[in-house]
Structures are given as structure tokens and as C-alpha cells.
């Protein structure tokens, strides 16, 4: 853990303590600090702008209601994103979207290599401008199963470490790494297929 992370963690713990003493301004500081990363994540998961705003708002309200259960020995961001992740699982269940549990055993043949396609497509990708690649990336993300999309977004959009993701999902780091690998390879295949 870096010094910055440590100080940010203790700042968060102080803000939570103040919010629990009735200082709503402290909670507002928390919202301002995490709203961008939360919306970057949620918007890539639900795709509709208004829905992303509603979901994020509900996540922060749930976090406020659950503040007494937050334990300062854990990172606040991890705790907050766990609330968001659980909320989204409920959301997808209501929308009847199949959610695959991340801790279910991995198919032995499913090591990601089966997802590989010929690398000649690489030359095609090289020709795309950044914006075109972004559009393809967005489209590919839509097609990624939600349980893999979540990890891909956390890793590449939110810049989380494998350890942070493992803590949020309460899974071994190895399992998370394996799933992130699957997500990345599936994204690559989907992008190359669309080229």
C-alpha cells in the first residue's frame, strides 16, 4: 500500500467518523470524492445514462444508511464498490440477466487460449484510429457477460489492483486474475471479430 493510499484511507475513515457524528458535509465530501469513479463503473455496466445516475445515487444512499457497519480497517472504496456490485447483481436479477458467480469452478479447457484467434487481425486493429477503437471497445463491452465486464471495467477503467477486486468480491486473488484474463481475451476476440 502506498503512502497516498494510506493517507486517503485514513481521510476516508475520518470523514466516516464525522458523518456518523451528524456531519452531513463530511458525507458530501465522500460523495464528491467517489462519484466519478462510481459513475465510470456503473455507466459501463448499465449503459443507459439516466439509469446509471439513478443506480449510483441509490448506491451512495445505501452507503449512507450502512455507514455504521463500515469498519475503518478496510478501504472505504472497496466497501463502497462492494455495495455497488451487490446492488447491480440485484438489478440484473430483476432484469433477468444471467449472472454467473465468479467463484464457480473454471472449465479446465477454458484457460483463455481457446478464445485466441489468429493474430493477423492485429494489423487490422492497427489501422483504426483511437476513436474507432473506442467505439469497438464500447460495443464489445456490451457483449461481454456482466460478471466479466465488471472485472474488465474495474481493472482497465477504474484502474483497480487484483487485490482490491478480490477484496470487493471476497474471492482469492488467483480466481480474480483468471477471470480478468478471460475478460481481456474475450474483449480482444470480440473486437477482432468486429474488424
Amino acid at each position, binding site marked *: 500500500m502506498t503512502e497516498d493510499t494510506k493517507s486517503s484511507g485514513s481521510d476516508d475513515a475520518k470523514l466516516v467518523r464525522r458523518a456518523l457524528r451528524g456531519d452531513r458535509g463530511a458525507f*458530501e465530501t465522500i460523495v464528491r470524492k467517489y462519484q*466519478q469513479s462510481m459513475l465510470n463503473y456503473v455507466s459501463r455496466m448499465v449503459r443507459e445514462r439516466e439509469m446509471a*445516475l439513478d443506480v*449510483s*445515487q441509490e448506491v451512495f444512499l445505501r452507503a449512507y444508511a450502512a455507514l*455504521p457497519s463500515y469498519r475503518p480497517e478496510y478501504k472505504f472504496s472497496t466497501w463502497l464498490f462492494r455495495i455497488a456490485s451487490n446492488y447491480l447483481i440485484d438489478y440484473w436479477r430483476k432484469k433477468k440477466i444471467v449472472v454467473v458467480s465468479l467463484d464457480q469452478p473454471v472449465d479446465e479447457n477454458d484457460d483463455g487460449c481457446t478464445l485466441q484467434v489468429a*493474430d493477423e487481425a*492485429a494489423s487490422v486493429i492497427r489501422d483504426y484510429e483511437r476513436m474507432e477503437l473506442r467505439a469497438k*471497445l464500447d460495443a464489445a463491452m456490451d457483449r461481454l457477460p456482466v460478471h466479466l465486464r465488471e472485472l474488465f471495467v474495474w481493472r482497465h477503467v477504474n484502474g483497480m489492483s487484483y487485490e482490491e477486486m478480490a477484496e470487493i468480491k471476497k474471492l482469492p486473488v488467483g480466481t480474480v486474475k483468471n477471470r480478468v484474463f478471460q475478460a481481456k481475451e474475450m474483449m480482444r476476440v470480440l473486437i477482432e471479430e468486429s474488424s
Partner: protein
Amino acid sequence: MSCLTAGRLYDYLDGALSAPDREDVERHLADCEACRRALDVRQKIAGAAADLPDFEIPGDFTARIMAQVSERPAYAPKKAVRIFAWATAAAATIGSAFGVYAFWTGQGALALLQKWGGAFGTYLQNAAGVAIKGLKLFILSGKIIADVSGQVLATLQSVAAMMGPEARVIVAGMALIVLFSGGMFLRRRTAVSEKIDEEE
């Protein structure tokens, strides 16, 4: 060296390889066009994902959340903070009342303070006399309690001397149970009052 696996390429991009492994990968990449292309594709996708624009947050997003938060009951400040807040409010009220009184009667604040201070001194003297009497009473009642409990203990000792060892164990066990139940009852009462305090 055979071509690099996808896993190896990602580890290389993540900076998760040891220095010797990293050098091995770099040596292979220098000689292998296919692996360089495979790395390039993955690097571009990861780069594009990291470069995705931030979600544009509406200006009133935080305010909307805080409006909903303010509709919910605020978490209560801790008891010490509440007492401090009440004490400050009381001091401010008394101070203001004093100021208004001084203004209304046209008396100087210092003269008023001296006048009230003299009266207060007399009250203080009387109060101290009462407090000393109370203290004496308290010490006396302490002596009485000590005498009574000494006699009760002596009676218990003589009763215990008449009992056999098994009876003593049974009586001691029952006494412990009564004490423990009493303690648990008090603890529950305290917990309930704390909870009510928190809810308030």
C-alpha cells in the same frame, strides 16, 4: 524459446514479471514478429479502455444525493459532543440575557457583575455549608452501612461454620448465579438505554 502465451503477455504488460523473466520476454519479442503483434493488440485494447472518457456528471448530482440524505434522520453526535453543544448554547443564552438586562436597566456591565457577584458569594457560602453537612451525613451513613455489613458477614460466617462443605459449595454456587443474573439484567438495561439514546 517457444512463442509467448497470452497469460505471459498480460503479465508483461501488468509489470508482474521478475527482472530475469522480463528480460527473457523482451529478448523473445525482439526476434518474434508474431508475438510483437500479439502484444501490440493487447496493449492497444488496454490503452483504449484506460483512455475511455469519464462519465459526464450533471452539476446537480451531488446536490440530489444530499437532498435525499437530508430527508433521513442525521446520525446523532456523541454524548460528550451533545453535552458540550448544550453547555455552549446555555452559556450563550445566559450571556445574551445578561447583556439584554444590562442594556435594559442602563447599568454598567461591570457594576452589575460586582453586585451579582456579591450576592452570588453569599449563596456560595450558604451552599458550601449545606454541602459540608451533606458530606458529614454521607460519611456517617457509610459508617452505619459498614457496621451493618460487618454484622451480616459475621452472621454468615457463623452460619457457614455450621454447614458441611457440600452445603457451602451449593450456597456459594447459588449466590454466584444470583449475582450473575443481576449483572446480566443490569447490562441488558444499560444496552437498551444506549440503543434508545442512539435512536434518538
